[in-house]
């Protein structure tokens, strides 16, 4: 049954999903080719949607592919398949982690990992905002001179960014509200008053 296959394939993929959602994408693509389930262009359209909808891109991709291949049941099984490894692994290791001595090997490793994760967080800020804030990708054309910076940065997005930073720092407005209002601002600035 194709639904069981979906569960099994995505369970396997879930076990391999290290280091961020995007690393899973090429693996998923390989599986799709192997199964003959979807064309390349269909897959790329699907990824684009999975990126803009809330939630992690790997999870959304699993749900979407599951639906396309096996209907609602397929999407449920694909999604369950991809998250089950996490549930099992965490359940197994948390008791292990708590038995670790203070100053043990794990503690020392985490000392370094914390700095890396802090860096990952700030990188995430850049990666999420990159397409909105910059008119060209600066990581590709990284050598533009100072006078071109004004052209590269999208002024309207910058305005939204400054507003959000200000409100986040100075007020207690809930982040969810800020996100939703920025969506509305986006419609105002980029659609209605183009």
């Amino acid at each position: 049954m194709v639904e069981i296959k979906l569960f099994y394939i995505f369970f396997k993929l879930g076990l391999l999903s290290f280091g961020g959602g995007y690393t899973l994408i090429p693996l998923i693509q390989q599986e799709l080719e192997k199964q003959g389930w979807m064309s390349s262009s269909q897959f790329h359209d699907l990824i684009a949607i999975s990126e803009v909808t809330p939630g992690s891109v790997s999870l959304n991709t699993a749900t979407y592919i599951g639906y396309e291949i096996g209907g609602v049941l397929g999407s449920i099984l694909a999604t369950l398949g991809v998250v089950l490894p996490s549930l099992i692994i965490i359940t197994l290791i948390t008791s292990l982690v708590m038995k670790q001595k203070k100053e043990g090997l794990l503690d020392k490793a985490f000392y370094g990992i914390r700095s890396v994760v802090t860096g990952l967080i700030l990188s995430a800020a850049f990666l999420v905002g990159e397409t909105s804030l910059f008119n060209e990708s600066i990581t590709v054309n990284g050598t533009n001179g100072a006078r071109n910076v004004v052209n590269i940065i999208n002024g309207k997005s910058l305005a939204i960014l400054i507003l959000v930073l200000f409100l986040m720092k100075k007020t207690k407005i809930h982040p969810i509200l800020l996100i939703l209002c920025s969506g509305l601002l986006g419609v105002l600035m980029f659609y209605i008053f183009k």
Partner: protein
Amino acid sequence: MGETIKKEVNIKDILDLFLTFFKIGLVAFGGGYSMIPLIEKEMVDKRKWIEEEEVLDIFALSESIPGSLSINNSILIGKRVGSILGAIAAMIGTILPSFIIIIIVAMAANTVGNNPVMQAAFVGIRTAVAGLILITGINMARKTIKNKLEIGLFVITIIGVIFMKLNASILILIGGVLGILYNR
């Protein structure tokens, strides 16, 4: 990351876990890291389920094991607050919003991505999320990045991810190894 909260697991907490993670899941545009400001607001500030210092450890653990960041985070926090049941409630709460939205979009035959109104909204949303992550990240960096090793790992990570498109796993491994060597 140590002790579980020593109290009885009660149904109210389980439900609360589900609803809170559902709420967060609805606006988690941009994946796992976009949850940070919301986790801080809802779980550290409002409910005091976890301490601020533990958020980084939770993310560190989530990055080190397979699975998407948001799922791992929800399971870890859920387990902390309400044991296995809490972990499952938190996990389902995280999965459900995106699951429902994707099914709706798939049924509506992919018109969301091409809709110009939606695209305009997403530009605003992505900007806001980036800003929120930025502030949270800077606050965290201020507290944790002090000595040369920490600064080095921090800078290498940012350069590696943004400019060299390195896989986070490699950086986590480097961080772990250097952490052990530094504290020998």
